[in-house]
């Protein structure tokens, strides 16, 4: 069904949406797995959900141990006071950037290919932000007092320190999380109404009817809806950029050599988009196979996501170069030593070179179209990139802190069992939420896909596609 005969054997479609998709077809392909009976849930879902749930157990145990014992169970100490919790926080929140960027930025730039990947990418964003947001709270040591960061009337007569980037973080992340949830939910309303009208099951009907809030798709409602959605996109786009910039300022505003650097915000944002697209691909490639969505998430989507990954990856590599150049050009002894320690230092040189290999070298095959359109190759490259981005944060956070100003206060960082169990367990939290999402909600925005299919069929958006096909001559004429 999903493949067409063409030159060089079976080649999938290159169009933004498969040829001849109809409203009913899109509806059925996307909604059938969501509305099917519990007993007909596929085995792969139970396996994935089961693994995620057990990892979630690991996460909860790690949190309980942390809270009952204290942050001493982690490897954080002087001089490396920001260890794995902050590395993982930055890593997860970076992943949580692609979703809103795809939804918001690509909507504003009128890129039709955003439509089929935006919904699950937004879900991914929200779940990644949930996971990320818990790290700084746990890292407080006394997580139950996190509300001290909020400006609220209190008997101490105190406000939080608004000049501190750590408080900026709180505002940035909580705004980002709540606006992303709003954006996601508003986008879901017409799709929930579709589910409400399709189901025969009483429980599902009540569930989706409640969530759809009584949406009836009237022209006046659509008029306001579209304006609200466009405004939300316009507001979310700078918001995405601000979040990782703020996180970068946690570092850049300090005096630590290697952190106090003006390139940090843009370089962090590029890294976040890079890691985010890698995660989008890691999730999209199995998802389109498992749910038979190849006509809706086509090779074109993989290709475009890979191009963006390559572009942002090159910006990140440029960031590495500028960091080293700055260290040399500043003439500051400590900066120069920091650079030397990262690249050639006896303890952690391997981390730097591995990250160059992963983020700089491993993405180079993406220049080739055949690689960008090979799901397997993309999947492997995306995993390498995710590991590379973790190593980048390791180098920035931990390695930088091991040797800063005074020789007498140099030290090393050794992570502990509980550092790793919390990290591995966090995949359980993310996975559990994601598996529940793909089972209970449509992973593709059916309403927007219907609009796209209509445009595709009626308004001649094909001319570009056809020129493209002629140029590449790959897709067989039907």
């Amino acid at each position, binding site marked *: 069904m999903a493949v067409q005969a063409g030159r060089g054997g079976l080649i999938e479609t290159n169009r933004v949406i498969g040829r001849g998709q109809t*409203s009913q077809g899109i509806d059925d392909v996307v909604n059938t797995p969501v509305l099917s009976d519990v007993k007909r849930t596929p085995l792969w879902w139970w396996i994935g959900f089961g693994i995620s749930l057990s990892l979630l157990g690991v996460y909860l145990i790690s949190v309980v141990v942390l809270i009952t014992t204290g942050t001493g169970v982690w490897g954080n100490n002087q001089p490396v006071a920001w260890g794995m919790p902050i590395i993982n926080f930055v890593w997860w929140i970076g992943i949580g950037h692609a979703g809103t960027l795809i939804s918001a930025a690509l909507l504003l730039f009128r890129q039709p290919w955003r439509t089929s990947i935006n919904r699950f990418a937004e879900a991914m964003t929200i779940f990644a932000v949930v996971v990320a947001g818990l790290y700084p709270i746990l890292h407080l040591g006394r997580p139950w007092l996190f509300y001290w960061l909020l400006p609220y009337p209190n008997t101490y007569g105190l*406000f939080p320190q608004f000049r501190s980037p750590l408080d900026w973080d709180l505002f940035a992340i909580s705004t980002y999380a709540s*606006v992303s949830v709003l954006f996601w939910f508003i986008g879901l309303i017409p799709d929930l109404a579709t589910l409400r009208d399709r189901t025969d099951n009483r429980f599902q009907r009540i569930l989706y009817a409640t969530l759809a*809030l009584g949406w009836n798709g009237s*022209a006046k409602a659509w008029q*306001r809806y579209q304006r609200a959605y466009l405004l939300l996109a316009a507001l979310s786009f700078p918001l995405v950029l601000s979040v990782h910039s703020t996180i970068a300022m946690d570092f850049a505003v300090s005096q630590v050599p290697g952190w106090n650097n003006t390139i940090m915000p843009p370089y962090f944002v590029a890294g976040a988009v890079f890691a985010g697209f890698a995660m989008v691909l890691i999730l999209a490639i199995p998802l389109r196979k498992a749910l038979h969505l190849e006509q809706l998430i086509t090779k074109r989507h993989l290709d475009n996501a890979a191009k963006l990954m390559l572009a942002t990856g090159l910006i990140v590599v440029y960031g590495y170069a500028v960091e080293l150049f700055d260290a040399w050009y500043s003439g500051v002894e400590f900066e120069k030593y920091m650079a030397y320690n990262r690249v050639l230092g006896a303890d952690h040189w391997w981390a730097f070179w591995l990250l160059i290999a992963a983020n700089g070298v491993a993405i180079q095959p993406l220049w080739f179209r055949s690689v960008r359109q090979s799901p397997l190759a993309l999947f492997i490259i995306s995993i390498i990139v995710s590991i590379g981005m973790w190593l980048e944060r390791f180098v920035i956070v931990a390695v930088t802190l091991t040797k800063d100003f005074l020789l007498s206060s140099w030290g090393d960082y050794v992570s502990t069992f509980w550092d790793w169990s919390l990290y591995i367990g966090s995949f359980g939290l993310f996975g559990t939420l994601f598996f529940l999402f793909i089972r209970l909600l449509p992973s593709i925005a059916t309403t927007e896909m219907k609009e796209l299919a209509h445009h595709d069929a009626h308004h001649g958006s094909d001319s570009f596609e056809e020129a493209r096909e002629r140029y590449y001559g790959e897709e067989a004429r039907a």
Partner: protein
Amino acid sequence: MSETAASIDDRHLYGLVAEFESVEELEHAAEKAKSAGYEAMDAYTPYPVEGLDEKLGMKPTRLGWVVLLAGITGAILGFGMQWYSNVVFYPLNIGGKPLNSWPMFIVITFEMTVLLSAFTAGLFMLGRNGLPRPYHSIFNTPGFDRATRDRFFLCIETRDERFDRDGTRRFLEDQSPVKVSEVER
């Protein structure tokens, strides 16, 4: 072609609903209805149709202005909160910076602007659309479940001055719909 539902008396009639198979037929019917002078009408479609609001004679939404106001309020609140706490309420010398060190207040001001305007956009849209709303007369239309799938509906409501049970039905039937139904309030 038409459905005989004479059981609905005039007081309980919400309107007449025509069901169409394609967007083009709906758009055509909407234009015809507008030029025939109907005003109290609405169309129901599975996805947004560009320009349909104008064809039905609807005014543009004021949502943008409301969101702008909310954004300005958010910016003032965000900056005001920081300025008040640092300059008036609890002045504290931090690293020799001036009390009103405004560049340090920009991030939170920005986040508050976005927070207020985004939630205003979302909630204003829902509120003005009357959502959440569990009951709406239009859901009584036979086959209306396809309004979220692949059918397009045009409803002329009884509150329209020109509404006339037989005349309006004849008008709608002339627009080549799949069927025309009377819908109970």
